[in-house]
């Protein structure tokens, strides 16, 4: 094996497949983090998004409709979170654990109830996203295959990261979100309900996580597998915690995760047992987490 094997165009082209879902979910998590909602149910949000996307893509026969239903499913999860954490005094960790479990149970249950299959559902009627080829960009060496020929959701994710940076800095809701996370009493004193602001954070988070799920089920592949979020929501949670919800560092760290993740996908061809390549994203995330936490701890001491 040689290093060139890792840096061929196919490898570059596979990067966005890993980055997109984690980035979208992490951006959703960032909204909650900045608004002071401790949402560690991203895993469940993404899973519901993935399932809803397949529902939409199958029944309406279009990827766009799949994305729309995915957003709908994600928003629904956000609303449930809001109902039990904002309107009722449920602890966010408890609500998160319950919602992750709910997503795992409900998607499997509905998979069997609606499609009468267990494990995985694949069907030609599921219409997924087609890659978008950008003529000039595609020709650029190295970056070309990354930036061209990806699903629409990849571009949405990149745009969302940049937009969110501006949103937090200059948008009314962005400003209020930050205030809700930092000193909500100031919002109350100004006559703005922090709860309402947080509701918006959860709704938008649900929408983004829904899209993350759509990327998994109708862009990366055209099928739904039980528990197909497979820990990506948790990796997104780690990314959010590490960057404290700042969109641009978030983008950077997710790219790092994605790079390691696709690396592992790549080395699978080198004869490693599959379990090790499966393990790689988590070990890589843990390693980044350990290094950065340790560095932070030393700096603050």
């Amino acid at each position: 094996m040689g290093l060139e094997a890792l840096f061929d165009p196919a490898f570059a082209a596979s990067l966005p497949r890993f980055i997109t879902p984690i980035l979208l979910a992490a951006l959703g998590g960032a909204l909650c983090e900045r608004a002071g909602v401790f949402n560690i149910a991203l895993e469940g949000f993404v899973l519901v998004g993935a399932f809803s996307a397949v529902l939409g893509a199958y029944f309406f026969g279009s990827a766009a409709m799949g994305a729309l239903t995915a957003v709908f499913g994600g928003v629904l999860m956000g609303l449930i979170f809001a109902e039990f954490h904002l309107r009722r005094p449920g602890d966010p960790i408890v609500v998160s654990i319950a919602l992750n479990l709910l997503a795992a149970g409900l998607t499997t249950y509905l998979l069997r109830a609606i499609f009468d299959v267990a494990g995985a559902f694949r069907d030609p009627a599921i219409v997924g996203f087609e890659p978008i080829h950008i003529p000039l960009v595609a020709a650029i060496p190295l970056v070309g295959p990354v930036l061209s020929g990806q699903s629409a959701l990849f571009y949405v994710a990149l745009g969302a990261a940049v937009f969110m940076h501006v949103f937090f800095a200059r948008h009314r809701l962005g400003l209020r979100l930050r205030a809700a996370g930092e000193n909500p009493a100031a919002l109350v004193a100004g006559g703005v309900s922090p709860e309402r602001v947080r509701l918006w954070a959860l709704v938008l988070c649900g929408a983004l996580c829904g899209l993350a799920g759509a990327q998994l089920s109708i862009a990366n592949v055209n099928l739904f597998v039980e528990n197909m979020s497979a820990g990506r929501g948790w990796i997104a949670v780690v990314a959010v915690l590490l960057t404290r919800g700042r969109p641009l560092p978030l983008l950077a760290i997710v790219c790092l995760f994605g790079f390691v993740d696709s690396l592992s996908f790549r080395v699978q061809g080198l004869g490693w047992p599959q379990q090790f390549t499966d393990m790689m994203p988590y070990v890589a995330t843990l390693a980044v987490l350990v290094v950065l936490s340790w560095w932070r701890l030393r700096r603050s001491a």
Partner: protein
Amino acid sequence: MSVLDSTPPVRGLTPWIGVLVWILAILFVLMLAAGAPFGGALEGFLSGAFGGRRFAYLMTTLSRATLIVGMALAVMLSFRAGLFNIGGEGQLVLGGLVAALVGVYLPGPPLLVVAAGILAGMAAGAAWAVLAGVLQLYVGVPLLVGSLLLNYPARYLASYVVGHPLRDVASGLPQSHLVPVEAWLPFFPGTRLDIGILFVVAAAVFAIVYSHTTVHGYRARMTGHSAPFAEASGLPVRRLALQTLAMSGAIAGLVGAIAVFGIHHRYIDGMLVQPLYAWTGIVAVLLVKMIPWAVPLSGFFFAALQTGAAGMERAAGVPKELAITMQAVIILFVASRLTGLHFGGGAGEGGRPGEGGDGT
């Protein structure tokens, strides 16, 4: 500002009736979605959880409850000490794997093999939990995330070990060889229930006595209520945390060992992950607000829910995943009604507008 709405929690049954109605309504809708006949489903549920020929299904429920209660006890010890160890799955898996390897490969008298297997499993579980604790205390990785992420390496490592180097190739499945029959935990006479449940009963007694009467349990709980308080009072908070995690992980490892020696008699890939034992254990603890004596009851309840759902699937074709879904629904409604179940920082003095803050 809903200051005036903040009446003290109503004592009585009325709010719980509302909760029950909601839960049943959701159950109804889900069953409707699966197009199941209700009468048959209910019958199937009851017989699946408590019935069967010579109560065979009740024994299955008890067997499952053994694992769930064990995991719940492990979680309870951590949670009461304010340690959000949600890595029970990894601790359980490694405990089971190590126990199985000892059971298969350690020569010697069966009793010794079982004892060594169980102890090794407990040690493995404890080590994995302590690792998450060390990451939090000495590296700054939040336990919540650290313990969770450690689940995955454990899961895939176990999967690799029984899938490649130590696989029972002849069986054609990713699983270890069988533990020698002599080292299997015996059944209670006349039943298909192994004596593993006795280990969990012992663990429950230990956990209850520990929580209520020991100095260590008291100190751990004070740390759980407020870590800054414990620290400022001079308690050895780091040592308490690591010791508590070790106990918690050891119980999880014990559960893995019981599953191996009592139920499956080998390590099968996914056998401890797929049924979501660890998560169900967490849910069982949250349902009863971490009250030690109630944890076994709550664990049994969820075990019955799961085996009952399996019965419902056999009788009426309702997918058994209904159980997991309903677990989540129950915990959502119940946990959001229970006050005082807060992990994300204590209630502050400025909880309401008004001077003085803390009442009269």
